[in-house]
């Protein structure tokens, strides 16, 4: 059993896939260094991320399969589901054979796995576009802590960059110790970037922050129609695991 070990980055994964296509014995699993647990039969191969190789794979997917397939595997990668990497590899193998038609093969197990992971990620991304909450800090930065199931920070950031374009903001993935930071001062055309950011960040609210949180809570309480109370339905749409950072729910 050959285990390809990569650094956890998307480029790392694409490099591993490049190597997999060219190696005489394909990998049994592709896993990150951190998730690897050696066993009696495992044989490891360390993959060093190589941007030239990953670029080649990236381009080939786009040209020989489709941009949808590229989006699918990126989202599947972000899902962080166990063993998703090897499914991505299988999916691409099939994709290079079938070309753009691969995504019509919806009853194929491999395609189903990838579509399933893709849907989970897209769904959580859409969900958090709504459920994420910013708090205005003393330094006039809008700060939003999140703990998503999947690694969706890089999908959320462009949405908020378009929407909250005239305010400084920071979205903090506390589960992964990552942050997307949008700065008006940034000289790049893309005003946001990803950083590692420690979980133990100390924050201090701006003066009006509590007032507006309080007003929002008032509104939230008032809009519910008592005769129609349906807490089960509420939880179904808005699972409790997301409540922690929602002003109206904690």
């Amino acid at each position, binding site marked *: 059993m050959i285990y390809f070990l990569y650094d956890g980055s998307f480029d790392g994964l694409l490099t591993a896939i490049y190597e997999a296509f060219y190696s005489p014995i394909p990998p049994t699993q592709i896993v990150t260094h951190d998730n690897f647990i050696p066993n009696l039969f495992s044989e490891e191969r360390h993959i060093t991320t190589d941007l030239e190789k990953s670029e080649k794979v990236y381009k080939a997917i786009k040209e020989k399969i489709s941009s949808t397939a590229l989006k699918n595997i990126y989202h599947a990668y972000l899902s962080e589901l166990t063993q998703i990497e090897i499914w991505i590899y299988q999916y691409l193998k099939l994709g290079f054979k079938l070309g753009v038609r691969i995504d019509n093969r919806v009853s194929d197990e491999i395609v189903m796995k990838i579509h399933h992971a893709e849907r989970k990620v897209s769904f959580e991304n859409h969900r958090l576009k709504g459920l994420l909450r910013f708090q205005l800090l003393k330094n006039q930065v*809008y700060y939003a802590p999140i703990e998503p199931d999947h690694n969706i920070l890089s999908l959320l950031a462009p949405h908020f960059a378009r929407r909250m374009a*005239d305010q400084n903001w920071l979205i903090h993935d506390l589960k992964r110790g990552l942050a997307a930071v949008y700065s008006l001062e940034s000289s790049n055309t893309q005003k946001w970037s990803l950083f590692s950011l420690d979980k133990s960040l100390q924050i201090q609210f701006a003066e009006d922050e509590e007032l507006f949180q309080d007003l929002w809570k008032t509104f939230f309480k008032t809009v519910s129609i008592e005769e129609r109370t349906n807490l089960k339905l509420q939880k179904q749409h808005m699972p409790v695991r997301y409540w922690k950072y929602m002003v109206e729910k904690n």
Partner: protein
Amino acid sequence: MDLKQKLDILADAAKYDVSCSSSGSTRSNRGGVGNAAVSGICHSWSDDGRCVSLLKILFTNYCIYDCVYCINRASNDVQRATFTPEEVAKLTISFYRRNYIEGLFLSSAIIKNPDYTMEKLLQTVHLLRNVHNFNGYIHLKAIPGADPRLIYRTGLLVDRMSVNIELPSSEGLKKLAPQKDKQSILKPMGFIRTHIQGNQEERKMFRQAPTFVPAGQSTQLIVGATPEPDFQVLRLTESLYNNFSLKRVYYSAYVPVNTSSLLPVVAQPPLLREHRLYQADWLLRFYGFSANELLNERHPNFDLDFDPKEDWALRNLYHFPVEINKADYEMLLRVPGLGIKSALKIISARRETALDFDDLKKIGVILKRAIYFITCKGKYYGGLVFNEEFMRQRLGQSNRQLKWQQLPLFD
């Protein structure tokens, strides 16, 4: 009175308005804050399980009118409040920047007179758009009877505008909203439609022309306050879609807030009836059905045990069962239990290979109800024989088990 008290009173007074949808507009951010997302985003769900996406408030609940069913009627003794345009703008912007909301849904009772009220609403959206650079979603209720020029100027600033019909017949209006009449409601609706269409033409020629109500207009009907049957409500809906090019019609189960000999006595708001109307509305807009197919004089109300599509199918069994590998898209849409997504999935999957029952399951088509109405490669799986009594019994059973409240009501 402080802002919190006002918000409490004026959000409470607005909450029976059901339309929460914020979709259908794409407004891009031009250097300020906010944009409108096409697919609509829910920011929270209230304790009654409804999507919260807009800051839904009345500008004021002081009213000179006396509509019998309305909590804000002049003769009611309720706490009253009025926002200032600045207060509404500040609330909207501050909530928006914290990602609590998708935008503002502003309506109002009629204070002083229709023009005065409409002017205040115009001032508010002007502040938001032109002073605060707010590009998020705005849905505004036009005030019946207000000067068309005010309605026009407001229309240039908002995404969606609506005029509520409330009662589905002239008799109903006469009885319960004596100061309003059909004309004062239909006139602004026609006016808005004409300008939306004129504006679309204009925008084809000059991309720079300002947009007028880009997300279209909608209205709301109260069901259960007056005796109209579903057939009449649905025919009204159909003509509103066809003649006034409305984007949405919303239905609101009558919730008694006042007592009057003119009002019906209801133990429970007719929620299931409201739900059936939403389902039928959906069938009109996306599934190619017409009101006359779903209901008629002899069958004027929806069966509460079956959804409108099942009800139709059971009365038109000669169309069924349909072969899943042959039926065209329009017919697939008419199969109870099959939605647009499933129909599309079937069409694309059967291009690769003829589908049998297990294939359908694999591609994620839910067959619980469809099973009685289809064949796969000529085989019927709905029971030993294709039999109406049996189908009614099985469908009725599973419908009673199904908690209908869990179906998505609002998109």
